[in-house]
């Protein structure tokens, strides 16, 4: 690496090493093990007095100026012949600060030292005067010590340096020097004698000579302690494997847990501890694969002891890497958690049993409450409607109030049942193509009575022309009624409830509906809990409340079943706004498997319109769901889509099919519809009128553009078809 600082303060760049200068593997004695040295040993290693003499020799031998720095590039001490380096650096960078001798650019302080330590190779810097300096990294294992800085280095020594003399002068053997150099880079002896690699090699050999023994004893000590630790662990199985999954070491804990002695299992594949089913499903291989890709894998499952008895194990696999090199193997930590598993199973069973009991209890209660409620309802309405004679205005008022309470009670009973369904995950939504305008209007018509009592006005800011949503109308109505009734409950007389809608700016696939009131608002701490089960916020001012406090909990569940989310914004005293999102109906999503690139390009996407007409009179609405089922049976769901009802009109006896058919396919569908309809309606009172349009898209457009085009055209065709039929009437 060359750090060039030629053009002044910020013109630094790294260049590939083009001349035989110190290159790679700078100071690494053993890169597979990392040890930590206590501070005292570290101080010893960086003791300048210990270094002074050798640095002087080093500089003299290599005919360069030399100094020692710590890992930050701070000078640790001066050698008498290091003076020229500092002088030179000082001249090159007038702003140079004491204590940071290698900062010759202000923008990249000490980059050369940092880079040398990072790469482990020598880093060369060319200064303004065109002179070269080298930072040689000093590392022991993964421990960075600092760097030797050499100034006024030659690109290439004019004459070969005698290796033996150089080695002797620094106090290492020639063989050692040679070994270190070869380990760094495969160089020939002749090259080494003339190249800067020698700088690195020499520094490194010296480090090894002086500190290798310390390091090794330190390593041995650490390893020994580690081995004791591993062997002593009895509650965990600790073992290692080679890259193919064959066991290479096995501790006492593993022997206790799995029953194999170390001698029995070393060399065997670890798949022997898996159940036969797992082995058949290649689970052992899959786990190693996962560990290889992610660096680690975690798993819980049944494992086999040597005596073939199963236990529930918690397993951690860690991949052992050699630097950035190949995988050396895997280390496994395994814990027997059978007891924990047993407890978890018992707890889960108890939880399910409790949920089941609760469901059956609540379902029973709800059933039992409904029976007397029905009698009260009939008697109240009978009197109220005058079936038993005239009613005075005062009596009417009381009865109306009784009826109101019956309805509230009925809603609470429904909530009770819903809550059990939420908890047993039985609550269902059946999404359809639904108009938000109509959903809001429906909800308003139900809530109007309650609103009128408190003279609260209901306003809808839901504009026609919004996209349709893909939602269960009954459930959305339930959510809206919950939110609106809630608003009414917490809003003083003469207030306003406003329902609005907008497409989410951040995600056009969702429509956001909001219900705002002018009520008492919700404090920040309560905003967190309003959606919790049985949450009903208490406030001194408001005492008239009813309901079980389940509405928001159920609404939240219903919204999330639709894939949307619900939240509230509120200011105490200024009202609250509840927001929830619903997925927008998307023809493109519904027909994704039809609108594929090959289908679009082949021009085989076809829109089929099926008008079911009655020979006499009109088709009865009740049989439309039946007809829909009949048509569903006529298409191939892998290739065709029967669109949801695309119109809010009452007589929606037109069905649309988007298919990948072409003309022949269209004929097949048409004849099948004719046949099925005759079977369904054996009096032949119904007749299908089937038409089709095959949609060709412009070639050369991107897939997305083509889908957008075909979607828009289908929507236009559907509207035109429905309008045309309307005008015929």
């Amino acid at each position: 690496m060359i750090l060039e600082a030629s053009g002044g303060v910020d013109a630094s760049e790294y260049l590939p090493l083009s001349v035989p200068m110190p290159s790679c593997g700078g100071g690494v004695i053993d890169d597979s093990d990392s040890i930590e040295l206590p501070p005292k040993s570290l101080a010893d290693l960086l003791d300048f007095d210990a270094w002074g003499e050798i640095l002087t020799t080093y500089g003299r031998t290599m005919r360069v100026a030399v100094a020692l720095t710590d890992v930050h590039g701070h000078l640790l001490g001066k050698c008498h012949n290091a003076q020229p380096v500092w002088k030179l650096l000082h001249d090159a960078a007038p702003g140079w600060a004491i204590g940071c001798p290698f900062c010759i650019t202000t923008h990249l302080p000490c980059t050369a030292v940092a880079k040398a330590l990072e790469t482990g190779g020598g880093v060369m810097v060319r200064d303004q005067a065109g002179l070269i300096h080298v930072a040689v990294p000093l590392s022991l294992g993964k421990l960075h010590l600092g760097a030797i800085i050499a100034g006024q280095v030659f690109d290439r020594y004019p004459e070969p340096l005698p290796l033996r003399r150089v080695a002797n002068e620094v106090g290492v053997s020639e063989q050692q020097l040679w070994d270190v150099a070869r380990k760094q880079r495969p160089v020939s002896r002749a090259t080494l004698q003339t190249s800067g690699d020698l700088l690195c090699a020499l520094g490194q050999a010296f480090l090894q000579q002086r500190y290798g023994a310390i390091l090794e004893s330190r390593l041995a000590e650490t390893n020994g302690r580690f081995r004791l630790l591993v062997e002593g662990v009895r509650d965990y199985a600790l073992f290692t494997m080679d890259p193919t999954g064959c066991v290479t070491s096995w501790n006492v804990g593993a022997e206790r847990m799995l029953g194999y002695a170390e001698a029995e299992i070393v060399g065997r594949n670890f798949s022997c501890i898996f159940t036969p089913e797992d082995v058949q499903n290649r689970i052992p291989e899959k786990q190693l694969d996962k560990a290889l890709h992610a660096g680690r894998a975690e798993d819980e499952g049944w494992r086999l002891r040597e005596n073939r008895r199963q236990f529930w194990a918690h397993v951690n696999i860690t991949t052992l890497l050699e630097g950035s090199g190949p995988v050396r193997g895997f280390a496994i930590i395994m814990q027997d958690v059978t007891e924990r598993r047993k407890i978890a199973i018992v707890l889960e069973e108890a939880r399910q049993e409790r949920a089941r009991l609760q469901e059956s209890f609540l379902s029973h209660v709800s059933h039992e409450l409904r029976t007397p409620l029905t009698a009260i309802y009939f008697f109240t309405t009978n009197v109220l409607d005058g079936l038993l004679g005239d009613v005075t205005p005062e009596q009417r008022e009381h009865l109306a109030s009784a009826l109101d309470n019956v309805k509230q009670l009925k809603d609470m009973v429904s909530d009770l049942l819903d809550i059990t369904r939420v908890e047993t995950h039985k609550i269902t939504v059946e999404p359809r193509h639904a108009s938000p305008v109509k959903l809001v209007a429906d909800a308003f018509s139900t809530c109007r009575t309650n609103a009128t009592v408190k003279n609260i006005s209901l306003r809808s800011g839901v504009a026609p022309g919004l996209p349709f949503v893909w939602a269960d109308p009954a459930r959305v109505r339930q959510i809206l009624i919950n939110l609106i009734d809630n608003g009414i409950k917490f809003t003083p007389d003469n207030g306003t409830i406003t329902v609005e809608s907008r497409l989410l700016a951040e995600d056009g696939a969702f429509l956001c509906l909001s219900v705002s009131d002018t009520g008492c608002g919700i404090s920040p701490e309560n905003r967190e809990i309003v959606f919790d089960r049985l949450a009903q916020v208490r406030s001194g001012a408001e005492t008239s409340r009813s309901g079980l406090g389940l509405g928001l909990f159920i609404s939240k569940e219903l919204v999330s079943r639709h894939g949307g989310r619900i939240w509230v914004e509120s200011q105490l005293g200024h009202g609250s706004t509840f927001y929830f999102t619903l997925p927008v109906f998307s023809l493109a999503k519904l027909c994704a498997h039809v609108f594929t690139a090959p289908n679009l390009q082949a021009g085989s996407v076809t829109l089929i319109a099926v008008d079911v007409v009655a020979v006499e009179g009109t088709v009865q609405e009740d049989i439309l769901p039946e007809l829909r089922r009949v048509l569903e049976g006529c298409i191939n769901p892998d290739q065709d889509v029967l669109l949801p009802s695309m119109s809010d009109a009452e007589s929606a006896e037109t069905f649309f099919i988007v298919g990948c058919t072409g003309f022949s396919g269209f004929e097949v569908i048409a004849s099948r519809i004719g046949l099925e309809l005759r079977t369904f309606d054996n009096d032949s009172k119904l007749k299908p009128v089937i038409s089709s349009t095959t949609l060709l898209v412009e070639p050369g457009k991107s897939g997305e553009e083509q889908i957008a085009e075909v979607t828009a055209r289908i929507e236009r065709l559907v509207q035109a078809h429905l309008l045309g039929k309307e005008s015929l009437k």
Partner: protein
Amino acid sequence: MSGHKILIIDDDQPLLVGLTARLKANGYSVVCATDAVSAVAVARREVPDLVILDLGLPAGDGFLVLERLRGLTDLVATPVIVLSARDPADNKKRALDAGAVAFFQKPPDNHEFLTAIRQALGETIALSTFLKT
């Protein structure tokens, strides 16, 4: 006043009283049965134009009654409306599949319930034609 005869099968006495009053006020004649066994007997004897059927009954389930009614020649086309306190999620489809024309959970809305009765009684004439009369 249509004068159609409606059979209510329900074991809850107060409901029978309340609903009978409502139906009579709407011009129907009403007969009642309070258990699954007598229900079929009353149905055979009275041959009602429409049956309102509860599901939880003494001496047999409402579904059993429905099945038996469907087996009687005189009553094979008589519309049955189920009126039950049971959860529609579990029972509505089953009831419709078994031949009921509508399912109402208790308590029903008077207006909706009577509309369904009127529709069902109108339907008997052209039930198989799917046409509005």
